[in-house]
């Protein structure tokens, strides 16, 4: 009985051996008939200035940080009411008054088919960023600008926790 079991096992091992031959990592024959991939020419050097060799500079960086202002007030600020505005709800992470932008983590916006994301938004110029506090949960509306980027047109605290 053992002998027959053993014989069966040995016979069974042969196809396993053949299958195991097809181990990963052995490259197959090269692509044929495909177009040759060409490198992207980044352009020439332009006119060369004889006196400007590359400097191995060592700049010290000023601290780059996000500036946030403590805020008060809870009124809705609105730039304009537009029919194409999409509405969202989210939490303000930071406010950048210099660039007039805020960084928001928002819930999915079904009107645009957006999943929940964290991103920067430009804010309409007429909206006062001083009243928007990082950590606040907000309702907001956004509208696509001619350049393609979305801009916040209206924003107000939503009430409730994070």
């Amino acid at each position, binding site marked *: *009985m*053992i*002998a027959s*079991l*053993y014989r069966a*096992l*040995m016979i069974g*091992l042969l196809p*396993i*051996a053949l299958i*195991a*031959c097809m*181990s990963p990592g052995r490259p197959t024959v090269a692509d044929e008939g495909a177009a040759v991939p060409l490198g992207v020419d980044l352009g020439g050097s332009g006119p060369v200035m004889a006196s400007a060799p590359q400097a191995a500079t060592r700049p010290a960086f000023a601290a780059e940080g996000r500036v946030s202002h403590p805020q008060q007030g809870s009124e809705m600020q609105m730039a304009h009411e537009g029919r194409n505005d999409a509405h969202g709800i989210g939490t303000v992470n930071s406010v950048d008054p210099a660039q007039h932008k805020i960084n928001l983590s928002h819930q999915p916006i079904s009107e645009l088919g957006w999943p929940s994301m964290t991103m920067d938004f430009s804010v309409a110029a007429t909206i006062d960023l001083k009243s928007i506090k990082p950590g606040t949960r907000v309702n907001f509306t956004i509208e696509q600008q001619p350049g393609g980027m979305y801009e916040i047109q209206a924003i107000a605290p939503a009430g409730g926790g994070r």
Partner: protein
Amino acid sequence: MSTARILTLVAVLAGLATTAAGQTPAATDQPAALPGMSPGDAVQPVYDQEIFAHGMFSQLEGRWNGSNTQFRWEGQGWVGTDLDKLWIKSEGTLLSNGTLDDGQHQFLYSRAVTTYFDLQAGLRSDIDSRPTRNWGALGIQGLAPYFFDLELTGYASDEGHLAAKLEASYDLLLTQRLILQPQIEVNLYSKADPSRMVGAGFSDIDTGLRLRYEIDRKFAPYLGVVYEGKFGQTANFARRAGESTGDVRIAFGVRVWF
């Protein structure tokens, strides 16, 4: 197996493990929180204490001596980190009459102690068709100079028997995939154990010369010639029972690991 002996063994193992754990260095302390991190965050730039697991059958073969066939396995597996691993080792032979012979199974905790060697301690259970025996085990395993794989383990049973096992093998590359491996295993016992047909002194040898072809690193069928021999008192036991004391067989099997 007496309770006292079991407890002693467990205590020794626990002691080894705690010493090892104590020596396992803690992760680097995190200084003040980084932007976006809360204090106590466990994010590391690299994770170099990962747990890996592997198993290998170095022998998985049929042995044929012209009249009957045996089936033999010998395998090992481990799970753990670079320094600490849990090992399992098992070997046994299924005889042509359906009984299981030479069953030895070990469960060991292994600690890397030198560049090439691990210190191992744990339990060995002889489980086969004969009465079961349990032993405490302590040994070393690793790569000896000139690329010999070496395992040397000593055992102590609860009845005061001592034993030792030496296993060595060498991989001789004939080509990149064709490898000739001489291998030897020797067992010694301090006292006879008649119900297991084991005598005192050098008990048995299991040695073979196997030629394997590595279709893949992890799968290599082989053909070999093996010799199982019994010595001294063990040979006497065998003769009295009408069994052979020395057997040469052809082996055909596969060496696999994952």
